[in-house]
């Protein structure tokens, strides 16, 4: 898959729910169609919750990539 260049980055490492979900949704709300958001997380539950909740703000999850021990990078495009 071609690397998508994110327009914004949210570094949510160290935070537990609901902070990563809430901040992701808040950011998505302000973004324009086609823009891409990169969310960095290290909390396992957020990896399950963000993909479940992002579509409610028009976010399409393009990829979830493991970037380290219990660390993930989620790429979301605003539709």
């Amino acid at each position: 898959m071609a690397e998508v260049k994110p327009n914004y980055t949210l570094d949510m490492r160290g935070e537990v729910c609901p902070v990563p979900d809430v901040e992701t949704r808040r950011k998505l709300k302000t973004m324009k169609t086609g823009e891409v958001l990169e969310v960095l997380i290290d909390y396992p539950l957020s990896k399950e919750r963000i993909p479940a909740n992002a579509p409610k703000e028009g976010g399409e999850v393009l990829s979830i990539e493991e970037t380290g021990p219990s660390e993930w990078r989620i790429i979301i495009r605003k539709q």
Partner: protein
Amino acid sequence: MQGTLIGGLIVGILFGFLLQRTRMCFNSAFRDLRYFKDNWLWKQGLMAIAVETIGFQAMAAMGVIKLHPSAFIPAAQIVGGFAFGMGMVLAGGCASGVTYRIGEGNVTAIIAATFYAISAAAARAGKLKGLTGLFGKPITVTMTNPGVYAAQDGKVAPTVANLFGLNPWVVSIVFAAIILAYLFFTKTSQRKAPMHWAIAGVLVGLVGMLAYWSQQTYSLGITGGWINLFTATMTEAPYNWIGMEVFGIIIGSFISAAIFKEFKIRFPKDPKSYVFAVIGGLLMGWGAGVAGGCNIGHFLSGIPHLAISSILASIFFILGNWFMYWLVYGRN
């Protein structure tokens, strides 16, 4: 392993492993229901409660345990419950949530749990005990034949069954049937979780039953355990079953997180998160100390007794949780 420290430790390890695997956080369960329109964790919790409602009743009927509904002090459960509910939002997890997240390496969870233990101990047995007493004396029901209940001088804390003179079996079966009907005949949110909510709920319920058998005086709890861990470590008081159970939760969660590669020392970047953990821990501990239990003692273990105290406390846990979530995150 009845009433022994090793019994508490084993039950705690099982519970901690399950909490980590099933992401059993009641802070999330309550919040998701209203603000995320997501009922996955809520249904998981209710499934456990349905299993325990029948399980505790069956164990008591067989004479394996006596039911110990929690003391009913209405003002304490309302005020303490609301404070606890607000605190869990700031602390980033309920009492069991912050406990199991210590095993995952979460630094804010360690901070929240420490302040939780301090303020709960202060409210129950320390410098804030006088204030706790102002909420009143327990209201009890006098029963000539306590049956499945543990009574003191014929007095038992009120439950739906003994308050209205109903057969506890009938109440339990009707209640469990209502929960099951809700669980399986309403729409459930979808989630890619490691374990299906229904299976997770049944397993948590079974651990709750094992806990009751092992401890004898109650099922799972968190608050009393944290108080015991601190006081027994810093004074000459002995460790007890529930202190070991809380210690076991941390170990069990660590084992699960290590096996599934989810252990990591996690530090939030935002300084605000640390301040929230301290304030949230203090509020939660004080609230649970006053209310006589947390989301585990009152919600998970208390509702299956259909204890009036636990039902009232749980309602205010949820209201406090929704109020603080709205205050901090929900207004824009």
